[in-house]
């Protein structure tokens, strides 16, 4: 089999993650779905690094991870704040940004 | 380069504005006095400009020229001809009186406790000075781009003056008043912005055509007119007409010319009387002035092409404004519509393209400024006493406040341009100038003077005469010293210029000659010219040399 399949898989996961982001209301779950998408992206990077035989892809993936980690930290903190202030983790409750 | 008098004249109020705005919250009266002194000093400088200006000399004097934005050939170029000089003088003259009349206008919006952030009084007077600075500089600007920037920039302070410090005397209660106010302010802003944007397009267009005709693009009025004079700068007819329309539209909004006038009654009605004077007597004059200087100066052929339409519109403005003034129930709106009618006269005079018409129009700008100031300020004093703008709420004021009524009447008579008062001179010149080229238009416009009498006297009759029926009216006090000090000089000026307008015509005439030569027009010659001989050159023919037997 060709390692491209990994990329197919990644595409699939990415899509699922995307749908999750769109349909779930619980901010934390939404977050998880974002993580899923990031991971899918990582998988493609890794697969491509193998296909092209150089490590830049992996390094990219590495950076993605780090950034993702940072993002998770901050994001979760925000969720906690949100929860404290409005006692709900639903993204729909935070819908004040409108005219 | 000699002492930059014009720049200083324009800069002084600007600096004064900043200083006034910086006055601490607790020191309200200090801010007022500061503003007053600054504007008076500006007046002194403006007088200096008039003195330094030599009517016989070059077309533009006291010129300064520095490069500003090299890439677009924009220069900081200022200079005055006779017209600009007198208009600068007018501006500098009116503002102190406006400030004096507005002495307490900002107090109503003052917060109960002095507040570092919200200092209405300081802001109010600072804005007024800012407007003055911009107007003066825009009169002096001989660089189209510089003028454009000022033309637009003066909207900002005006917007806040109208919207922020409006007339509290509103029939429909406080918050309804606030709604009306903001409506008026926004309307004012939008109208003028639209005009300005169209003008901006024309300005860019001007740059383009100059850059491919003269090598590098320029906005310098003198440069362009000179180039035109020596044939180095010819415009394609259609392009010239488009550019003309672009400029004219903006000025017609500002002036305002029918049917672009509807912002004026709201703006003047909702703002306090002094601000209303600032609008109609000072800021709007920039529009008519710009027609005279830029439309005619830059695009003479197009101006001639547009003349029939413009004259028609001007006539409509004259009659329409007058008729609507007759129909108004609200004093300030009435005066606003009267102003529309008067602007019609000014534009008529400008586009009649005769020297009488144009000097008439220039004088009209000045005299209309003074007369409207007198009338509107007195009306403002009256309104502030009674707390209502509706004519129907008055009646018999003359009995309780004779001096107020007297000044009001004189202002009104000036507005209907009674001979002996200044506006008569300008109006008559405009009419003569128009008649000598377009007799029909002249006659139609003349019918406007009857309507003027109608609306002024109707207002006077309904407010001032008759028995005193309403208790609020009985309680109206007569003019106070401050108010008299504001109005009396204006009236004195009206009378002085009515008797001796020569002092202004001597300054204005040469400039008008230049404009006439710009548009390559000559005054129409009389059919049977008589040499202007004096009386004693004639002896009455008497065939019966009868002595008398008394």
């Amino acid at each position, binding site marked *: 089999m060709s390692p491209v399949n990994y990329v197919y898989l990644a595409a699939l996961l990415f899509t699922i993650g995307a749908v999750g982001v769109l349909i*779930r209301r619980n901010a934390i779950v939404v977050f998880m779905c974002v993580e899923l998408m990031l991971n899918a992206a990582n998988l493609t990077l890794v697969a491509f690094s193998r296909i092209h035989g150089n490590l830049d892809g*992996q390094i990219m993936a590495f950076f993605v*991870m780090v950034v993702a980690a940072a993002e998770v930290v901050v994001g979760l903190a925000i969720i906690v704040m949100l929860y404290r202030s409005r006692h709900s983790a639903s993204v729909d409750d935070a819908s004040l940004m409108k005219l | 380069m000699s002492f930059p008098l014009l720049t200083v004249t324009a800069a002084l109020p600007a600096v004064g504005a900043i200083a006034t705005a910086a006055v601490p919250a607790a020191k309200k009266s200090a801010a007022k006095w500061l503003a007053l002194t600054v504007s008076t000093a500006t007046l002194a400088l403006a007088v200096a400009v008039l003195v330094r200006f030599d009517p016989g000399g070059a077309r533009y004097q006291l010129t300064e020229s520095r490069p500003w934005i090299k890439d677009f050939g924009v220069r900081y170029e200022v200079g005055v001809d006779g017209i600009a000089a007198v208009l600068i003088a007018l501006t500098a003259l009116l503002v102190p009186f406006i400030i004096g009349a507005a002495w307490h206008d900002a107090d109503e919006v003052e917060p109960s406790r002095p507040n570092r952030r919200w200092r209405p009084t300081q802001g109010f007077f600072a804005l007024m000075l800012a407007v003055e600075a911009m107007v003066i500089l825009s009169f002096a600007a001989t660089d189209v781009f510089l003028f454009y920037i000022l033309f637009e920039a003066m909207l900002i302070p005006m917007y806040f003056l109208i919207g922020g410090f409006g007339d509290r005397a509103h029939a429909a209660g406080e918050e309804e008043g606030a709604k009306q106010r903001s409506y008026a302010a926004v309307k004012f802003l939008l109208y003028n912005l639209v005009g300005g944007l169209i003008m901006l397009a024309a300005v860019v267009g001007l740059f383009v055509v100059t850059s491919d005709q003269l090598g590098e693009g320029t906005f310098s009025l003198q440069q362009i007119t000179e180039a035109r004079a020596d044939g180095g700068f010819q415009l394609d007819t259609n392009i010239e007409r488009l550019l003309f329309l672009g400029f004219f539209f903006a000025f017609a909004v500002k002036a305002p010319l029918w049917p672009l006038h509807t912002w004026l009654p709201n703006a003047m009605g909702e703002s306090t009387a002094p601000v209303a004077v600032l609008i109609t007597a000072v800021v709007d004059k920039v529009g008519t002035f710009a027609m005279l200087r830029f439309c005619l100066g830059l695009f003479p052929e197009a101006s001639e092409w547009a003349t029939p339409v413009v004259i028609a519109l001007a006539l409509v403005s004259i009659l329409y404004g007058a008729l609507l003034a007759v129909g108004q129930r609200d004093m300030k709106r009435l005066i606003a519509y009267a102003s529309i009618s008067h602007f019609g006269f000014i534009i008529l005079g400008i586009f009649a393209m005769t020297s009488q018409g144009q000097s008439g129009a220039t004088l009209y700008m000045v005299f209309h400024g003074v007369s409207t100031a007198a009338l509107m300020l007195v009306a403002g004093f009256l309104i502030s006493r009674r707390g209502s703008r509706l004519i129907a709420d008055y009646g018999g004021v003359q009995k309780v406040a004779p001096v107020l009524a007297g000044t009001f009447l004189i202002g009104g008579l000036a507005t209907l341009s009674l001979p002996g008062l200044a506006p008569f001179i300008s109006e008559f010149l405009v009419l003569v100038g128009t008649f000598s080229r377009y007799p029909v238009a002249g006659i139609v416009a003349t019918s406007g003077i009857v309507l003027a009498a109608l609306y002024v006297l109707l207002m006077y009759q309904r407010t001032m005469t008759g028995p005193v029926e309403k208790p609020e009216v009985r309680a109206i006090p007569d003019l106070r010293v401050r108010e008299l000090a504001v109005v009396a000089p204006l009236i004195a000026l009206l009378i002085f210029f009515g008797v001796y307008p020569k002092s202004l015509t001597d300054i204005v005439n040469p400039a008008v000659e230049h404009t006439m030569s710009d548009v390559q027009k000559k005054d129409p010659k009389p059919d049977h010219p008589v040499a202007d001989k004096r009386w004693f050159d004639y002896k009455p023919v008497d065939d019966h040399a009868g002595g008398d037997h008394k």
Partner: protein
Amino acid sequence: MFSASEASSSSMDALNLAVNSTSAAEAASFWVLGTIAVIGALGTVLLRKAVHSALCLAGTMVILALFYLANGAYFLGIVQIVVYTGAVMMLFLFVLMLVGVSAADSLKETLKGQRWLALACGLGLGALLISGLGQASITSFTGLGAANADGNVPALASQLFTKYVVAFEVVGALLTVAAVGATLLTHRERIEKSKSQREQAEERVRANKHLPPLPAPGVYARHNAVDRPGLLPDGTPSDLTVSATLLSRGQVREVGPEALHRVAVLEQRTADSHGQTEHGRMYGEPHDPDRDVDDADDEGRGSGREAREARQDAREEEATK
């Protein structure tokens, strides 16, 4: 052991760089694990309870880690397990605990047409991606044998600290900032010093509310777990008896109907013994008896919300005082 085989294969293909296909073992593992990964992903998206989604996600991540290893990204594989499955997911779980473990959102959609749009977008995107890949037609691939010749980690390191050193440093800074930011965000500033017990007591007296300590949970209820509200004489559960946190999380249990019934009977008896029957009607049947246990949580959250509002009001009253 995949990694070993991969290593061997790569070392073997060191000379001819272009290989057309991977080992059958890898293929098999791909198909098996891939399916599981997809199932995990679906679980993440579809399960109602956040905790379950979290666990599914963890599973998917582990499998992805294995795939990294299979693709010769040994370092990344380990990092994936340590950082993601180890740290990040744990963080998620912590937050979940904070927010309420059993809190689960009902899957009924509130935004009109959102779900269908979402599906359309997602599937459309997926289809496009896959079709795009289909166009790509990559037949042969270069293994990492050459690149990983002297080990994957040293190779990465050599690049990371030479070519990408700046990015590396920046990312470090980013992490620090993120950490500080998170602490700042979550740290709640105390405006006033916390009230001493005495002060609280005095306040209660002044407010003249609940002078006695709050009633214990579970009174009259079937059993007295902390998340069971005590029952008032007329059989209505009282929110005062359970802790506010539980209320806010909506984790207060319902009291079964028979408990209520027993209360009614008990009270009836006492009433009879006192010969006062006119109380009878106020121990009526418990409100809406036909309640199935499934949406107990929803109900619970509901009551929790009311209680929350009650508390809100109380706080406001204090503020006004």
